[in-house]
């Protein structure tokens, strides 16, 4: 027992010694906690927020965006779109170098964009790009086969990292290139350590081409998979920033911490929508009225206010409500159980039916919780719901991509321009068995196909809006998907932080202006 006492004593002493231990970096170390595991750090061949956050620190891109969807110079100090909308000239900065000292040239830009076109899962981003001319080392001209209004947004840091040709152009498959783990870029930070599934350490790039930046000495990205542990790390001051925070309990809890600021700004670009998808090929669900009945039965208000404790906002259509393209006049499907029952009777299911619902395994609140709620709620209109669990993401993805489902919860991102993240869900020619986040609903409407094709090449913003408005009316009304809410991504950060990353791409944006004054 004496030994135990002594051990405890020693531990307490050690604990107090640690809490008063001096901190090291002078310009400050920014500790970010994240719960998604990046496969590697090359955003040119890998989409997703897990890779984008470190990738945008390591790589620079032609353009960058702040809060208001207006492009800003980055590697391109200026740019010019031709009148016909078929070529974009990028004038690159003179002094940009990669972390290995080699200059960033138009060759690298051309190589990167062609690599992305070939390898990135978002095929629509650069699909119209035919070629890239490099008249001199600091000029790149992107030639298009048809007008492409999404192009400027596609040149964002999160989507178009400029990767060094002298590293990745060695003939190996870039998707599996060994350099993807610790890549060389031209961004504000250099990756010095990558422990898969654990941590990424980024050190200040002293030769960054933007004068006086970055302000921070170091960014450490810690991967913690347990949300409670992430919250504790924020509460203890062991971390300075927690982006992509979506759990309502965690948001409410961190709001109570004096030294932290919680905001939902910074996620307009991603446009994450949480929805219930219908397999319209299923005989039970092919009748639009059944889908509408379900839409009338589900109480979006209850989900956002009670289940999500008011942290999430309602989402009525396929385009995120914070986007300029959103049409607010779509049918909201306010809860109406009588109407729902009537629709069921009209569709020939007066005796009710049995359905299964899948959900993405992982944090429950946006997915499993709603699936469980559906089991409870749809019972009221005679639908017996079985919640079909998948033990893991692959099982779920396999079922949904294989069209082996009836209802499923899903979470899909807009990725800035509808061409990149919205079209894929509704185009008839994107019904592709085996591909997740394609048109897995098997939804087909000729008018929708037409509208989307036109919107993809329409350079006039108002005309484009009108095309998308009609699209939204149709899709919401026919309910291949019942839109529930915008995933309530929040960022929690130390209040003393200067210039927290709250632009349209949030933390998937270079943090070269972020400062931690009292820091550390």
């Amino acid at each position, binding site marked *: 027992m004496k030994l135990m006492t002594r051990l405890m004593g020693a531990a307490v002493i050690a604990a107090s010694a640690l809490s008063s231990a001096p901190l090291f970096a002078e310009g400050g170390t920014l500790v970010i906690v994240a719960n998604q595991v990046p496969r590697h750090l090359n955003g040119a061949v890998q989409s997703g927020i897990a890779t984008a956050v470190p990738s945008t620190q390591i790589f620079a891109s032609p353009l960058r965006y702040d809060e208001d969807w207006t492009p800003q110079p980055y590697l391109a100090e200026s740019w010019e779109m031709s009148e016909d909308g078929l070529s974009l000239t990028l004038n690159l900065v003179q002094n940009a170098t990669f972390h290995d000292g080699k200059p960033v040239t138009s060759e690298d830009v051309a190589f990167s964009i062609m690599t992305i076109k070939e390898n990135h899962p978002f095929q629509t981003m650069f699909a119209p790009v035919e070629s890239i001319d490099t008249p001199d080392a600091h000029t790149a001209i992107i030639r298009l086969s048809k007008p492409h209004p999404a192009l400027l947004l596609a040149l964002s840091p999160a989507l178009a990292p400029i990767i060094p040709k002298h590293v990745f152009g060695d003939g190996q498959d870039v998707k599996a290139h060994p350099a993807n783990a610790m890549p060389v870029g031209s961004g504000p930070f250099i990756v010095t350590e990558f422990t898969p599934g654990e941590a990424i350490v980024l050190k200040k790039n002293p030769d960054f081409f933007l004068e006086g930046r970055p302000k921070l000495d170091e960014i450490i990205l810690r991967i913690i998979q*347990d949300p409670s542990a992430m919250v504790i790390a924020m509460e203890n001051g062991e971390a300075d920033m927690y982006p992509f925070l979506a759990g309502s309990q965690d948001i409410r809890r961190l709001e109570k911490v004096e030294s932290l600021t919680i905001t939902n700004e910074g996620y307009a670009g991603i446009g994450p929508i949480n929805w219930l998808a219908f397999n319209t090929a299923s005989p039970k669900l092919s009748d639009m009225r059944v889908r509408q009945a379900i839409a009338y039965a589900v109480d979006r208000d209850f989900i956002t206010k*009670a289940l999500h404790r008011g942290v999430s906002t309602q989402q009525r259509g396929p385009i995120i409500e914070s986007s300029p393209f959103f049409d607010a006049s779509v049918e909201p499907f306010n809860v109406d159980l009588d109407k729902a029952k009537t629709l069921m009777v009209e569709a020939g299911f007066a005796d009710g039916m049995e359905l299964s619902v899948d959900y993405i395994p992982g944090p429950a609140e946006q997915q499993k919780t709603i699936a469980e709620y559906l089991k409870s709620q749809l019972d009221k209109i005679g639908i017996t719901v079985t919640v079909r669990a998948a*033990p893991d993401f692959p099982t779920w993805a396999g079922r949904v991509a294989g069209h082996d489902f009836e209802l499923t919860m899903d979470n899909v991102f807009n990725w800035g321009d509808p061409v990149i993240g919205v079209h894929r869900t509704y185009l008839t020619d994107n019904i592709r068995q085996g591909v997740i986040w394609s048109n897995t609903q098997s939804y087909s409407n000729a008018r929708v196909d037409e509208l989307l094709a036109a919107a993809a090449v329409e350079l006039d913003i108002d005309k484009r809006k009108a095309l998308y408005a009609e699209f939204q009316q149709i899709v919401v009304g026919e309910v291949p998907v019942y839109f529930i809410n915008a995933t309530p991504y929040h960022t929690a950060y130390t209040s003393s932080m200067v210039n927290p990353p709250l632009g349209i791409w949030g933390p998937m944006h270079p943090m070269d202006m972020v400062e931690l004054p009292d820091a550390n």
Partner: protein
Amino acid sequence: MTDAVAFKPESPAREAWRMFRRNIPAMIGVVVLSIIVLATLWGTFFFAGNPYEIVWAPHEAPGVAPEFLLGTDYLGRDIFAGLVTGGGPTLAVGAAAAAITMVIGISLGALAGFYGGWVDNLLMRITEFFQVLPTLLFAMVLVTLFSPTLTTIALAIGVVSWPQTARLTRAEVMKIKELEYVTAARAIGAKNRRIIWQVILPNAAPPLIVSATLTIGVAILFEAGLSFLGLGDPNTMSWGLMIGSNRAYILDAWWPVTFPGLAIFLTVFSVSLIGDGLNDAFNPKLRER
């Protein structure tokens, strides 16, 4: 008790039962387990509430409303309803997994111990193989392979836990087969199968019964661990599942995790008290210590 009674021969089972009855911890175990089983039976067959139903606001603390004695979970579902209806599957998986463990373990152990030679060699190699296999990881592979249902979970647990039973059975059988009554059975020309099942195994029963009891406890813990990792059957309420799905909220609400954990603990605790009691009862010599 007088000596006259003491000298009267008593059947071993009777003697064991007498010892067991006087073992206070074991009787506590019996009482607690009976209460749990009764509550579970009541919950499974007579309880009117639906554990999936959202009955109230999420995360209401225990005792705030008298009708929701143990509070509500993250969806606003009644924890008490979850406990009484989740007990059935938990106990069923535990018992089924223990049964599978015992069937595989006893069969292989008895064969190895009785026949010896190459049979023994082969079976013991297989046993060693399964002992080297990291149990929980392997069970996880099996459960993800066959998708998580109560049946697959019970099977997976059974498949990874039998080696110890096999070793125990083998040791007992090897001991007993040298005894005179086995030789006698052989002498009258009994068949091997008959000797194993009707002569040897009944005599090896006491340690096997103890081992079976303890296996139930281990299996319940195992199921809880799998459910906690998210590999439980989500359409079947179980205690492990309750802990696993409420784990993300422990900082805000302790009760949705604490009560199912206590239920698991009390069940395994009482089962192992009973196991210990049986062990003592079957080995009166140990009791003297």
